[in-house]
């Protein structure tokens, strides 16, 4: 499968890292890409279920262009949200629907996480696609 350039760049960045600690640092660096969802907007609807950390995700579609806002109490989860933000922000609905969560696997991000967090990643991904689908 060929990925959009932004996603491919993420894969490339991770694939070069040998050291697990560094990989986690890079992951956490992605937290800076998050467009933060203010605490006042956190609710049951945008809560990521089944994630042991607290995490919220909201997707807005404006003129067919997708944008995600999010927040989490753990830096690594924020990092995952940052990566998802890069993958979806500014994309069209179709581009988002064409994505699969496998890119994170390919980058080796999920292996370096606990099972509950890699599940959390998939859950967030699914939430995004669901909301985008609903926006059609």
């Amino acid at each position, binding site marked *: 499968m060929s990925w959009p350039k932004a996603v491919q760049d993420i894969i490339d960045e991770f694939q070069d890292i040998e*050291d*697990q*600690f560094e*990989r*986690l*640092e890079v992951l*956490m660096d992605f937290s800076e890409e998050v467009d933060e969802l203010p605490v006042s907007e956190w609710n049951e609807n945008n809560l990521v279920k089944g994630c*042991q*950390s607290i995490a919220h995700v909201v997707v807005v579609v404006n003129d067919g262009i997708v944008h995600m806002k999010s927040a989490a*109490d*753990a*830096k*690594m*989860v924020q990092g995952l949200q940052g990566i998802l933000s890069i993958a979806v922000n500014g994309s069209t609905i179709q581009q988002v629907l064409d994505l699969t969560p496998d890119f994170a696997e390919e980058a080796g991000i999920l292996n*370096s*996480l*606990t099972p509950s*967090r890699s599940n959390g990643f998939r859950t967030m991904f699914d939430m995004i696609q669901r909301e985008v689908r609903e926006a059609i």
Partner: protein
Amino acid sequence: MGDSMKHDFPIFSRLINGRPLVYLDNAATTQKPSCVIDAMSHYYSSSNANVHRAVHTLAGEATEGYERCRTLLKQMFNSNYAVITSGTTEAINLVSHAWGSHNLKAGDVVVLTEMEHHSDIVPWQMLAEKTAIELRYVPVENGELDMDAFEVALVGAKLVCMVHTSNVLGIRNPVEEVISKSHSAGARVLLDAAQAVPHESINFHELGADFMAFSAHKMCGPTGIGALLVSDEAFSEMEPFMGGGDMIETVTLEGSTYQTNEHRFEAGTPRIAEGFGWAAALEWLSSVDLESHHERLLKIANRVADQLREKGMTVYSSLRPGDAAVVSFTHPTIHPEDFARLLDAQGIAVRTGHHCAQPLMQKLGISGTIRASFYLYNDDQDADIFLSGIDRVLEAMA
């Protein structure tokens, strides 16, 4: 000291993320020496058979090896009865069914504490739902049992269930005092000794508790096996729990009669290989000076705790003499799971979360801790690696 002992444990030749394993998750489960692993392989490779009513050589060897585990338990802990279970949790559930269901009725009081492991809470909550017994929880204040509150709770109680040594805080409760006061008040005492038995030698008969539960896997033994020690008086008050092969004397369509010794509570093919493994672990542990290791580890834990405090962490363990070397802490801003994952990246294994003690977490006002727990094979070098691992995490998150 610790280092040379590591040679007995094959897992320490393992690299984790390119680094030698520093295993500080011992309160969850301990590592196994070669003699334990080999005892099980050897059983499967040369004596494997079902036990009891043995008419062939293998069955005789299997029975002897399995029952030897029980004999060792009785000798090491000085108990007339050692019921073999699948672990601490099943042992406590056994008490709640085999003793509780038959000796407690609506309105009877069972005293628990706020620092119990879920395995010593949920069985009693379930029994309370069925038979309307009353549960009273002794509060924890400043990381310690409130003994005044205990005496109040004790009034009219039939049973006191208490963790001997906490898996979250490492604190050793004043079990001697608890037992003598409980007995004076006419209450039986169940000790959850899952964390105690690995750390101190216990003479069950002298201590005087009625029930004591623990797991092999927390004392260098295999998974899937544990024990319930029972006093003579309490044993005579127990009725069978699970039914099936091996626990019966006679079965007819009209009804059955049961064995009178421990087999009464052990239905089905027992944990045979696990019995061989645990016997090896018990013998290995007997060759170790638990007390001096305990002091050594507590010193290490105290050094670690002091350093963690200096580095800005909140430490919940008080680590006084007699306590287990368990350091539970949090960082003001770093999520415990991030913290643990960054330690793991450096080969350091710790645990995070509520440690199956949510009520204690609620009392402490936190959702979880990072827990570093030390055991026999851990040494000062492990502590140093752990502390510099912490520094690297703090730098990375700064």
